[in-house]
């Protein structure tokens, strides 16, 4: 059973909460489909973790919106934000539904999966191993997009999540990266993160 935590009020600007919810829910959709297509429990678990995060943000957003409204005019201008937040939460729930399909082994039909694998870009979740050449490099210097057709779309470090991390960000051992791209480039990138490929140049 999932344990539900009590969510305490914290003052956070509504706009910040909304942007964070939007960014996370979009990432979740991509991760969830990839989890279904490549039957990846790791990606599915990541989606469920993010879903819990979005739920917490949704509670916080509602609380902050309630406190921010002083009169009828405020209420009118804030209701838009809460409607959008509710819809965004629904999107993250939808992604969670896909992840649950994967974890319960319901899966999708193998023939359909094959067909999708051909057209879809691949997503991967990698942990940077102590042997990886990625350690200490700035994302910019990797030139992954032009060299391998791979984009790093999220970085998880010490519980914190950065979506579309900055180019200047230096990678560290233990960082978890979510990357997207063409299947070949993604395969290669996984090996670079694991440390089994020790050079960044294409062979």
């Amino acid at each position, binding site marked *: 059973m999932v344990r539900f935590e009590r969510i305490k009020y914290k003052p956070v600007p*509504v*706009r*910040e909460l*909304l*942007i964070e919810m*939007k960014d996370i829910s*979009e990432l979740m*959709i991509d991760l969830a*489909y990839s989890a*279904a297509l490549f039957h990846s429990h790791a990606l599915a678990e990541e989606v469920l973790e993010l879903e819990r995060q979005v739920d917490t943000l949704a509670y916080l957003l509602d609380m902050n919106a309630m406190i921010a409204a002083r009169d009828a005019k405020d209420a*009118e*201008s*804030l*209701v*838009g*934000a809460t*409607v*959008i937040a*509710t*819809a*965004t939460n*629904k*999107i993250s*729930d*939808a*992604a969670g*539904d*896909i992840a649950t*399909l994967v974890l319960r*082994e*319901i*899966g*999708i*039909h*193998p*023939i*359909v999966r094959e*067909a*999708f694998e051909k*057209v879809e*870009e691949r997503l991967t979740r990698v942990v940077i191993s102590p042997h990886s050449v990625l350690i200490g490099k700035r994302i910019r210097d990797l030139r992954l*997009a*032009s060299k391998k*057709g791979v984009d790093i779309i999220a970085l998880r470090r010490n519980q914190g999540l950065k979506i579309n991390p900055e180019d200047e960000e230096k990678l560290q051992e233990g960082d978890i990266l979510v990357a997207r791209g*063409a299947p070949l480039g993604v395969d290669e990138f996984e090996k670079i993160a694991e440390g089994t490929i020790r050079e960044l140049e294409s062979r």
Partner: protein
Amino acid sequence: MKMSDEESFKKIVDMLAELKDTSEIMMDLAYSSILINSKDLANEVQELEDRMDHLHTEFELLVLSRCIKPEESKHFLGLIRLGVVTEKIADAASQIAEVVLRGLEPHPVLGLAIKQAEETVTHVQVSKKSRLAGKSLREAQVHEETGMWVLAIKRADKWLRPKPDIVIEAGDVLIASGYAGGEEELKTLATTEKRPHKK
């Protein structure tokens, strides 16, 4: 006429792909409609929602019309559930767009957000002489050249998702978001032969 097994499978795959793409484009467009407070974009989302409802029903009927063997039932349940998910996403997108159509003015909250992040959404039509025409999105390197991300491509009355392999045609309208400074550079790239100044 009854479709062969193979034909009906191909149809199921195609329809699921279309459901998925449409729901995601709706999501992109819905958020963009909020950011630039555009009723046009919001209306597009509502139109796509009608199309989704129709497509989704057709998809479910198609899956159900197959003679499903007991050992396959889980796999087909998975397909039906994926269809439901796309529908759920589409509904959410349509709710977001509805905020714009009701004139709820989400600006005090969201407008500020754009300014803070210095982010903007813009649309630009690709002209014949543009260096983008005839290139795939991957080759076009729009983000590298301008700092803008392409959210969606409108070709005639169809919306396309910006997948890397998609080839940009003259006449396409690109909807893109990014830092406000990139807007001019994107216009240069889409309407002239020139390269924008690299920073």
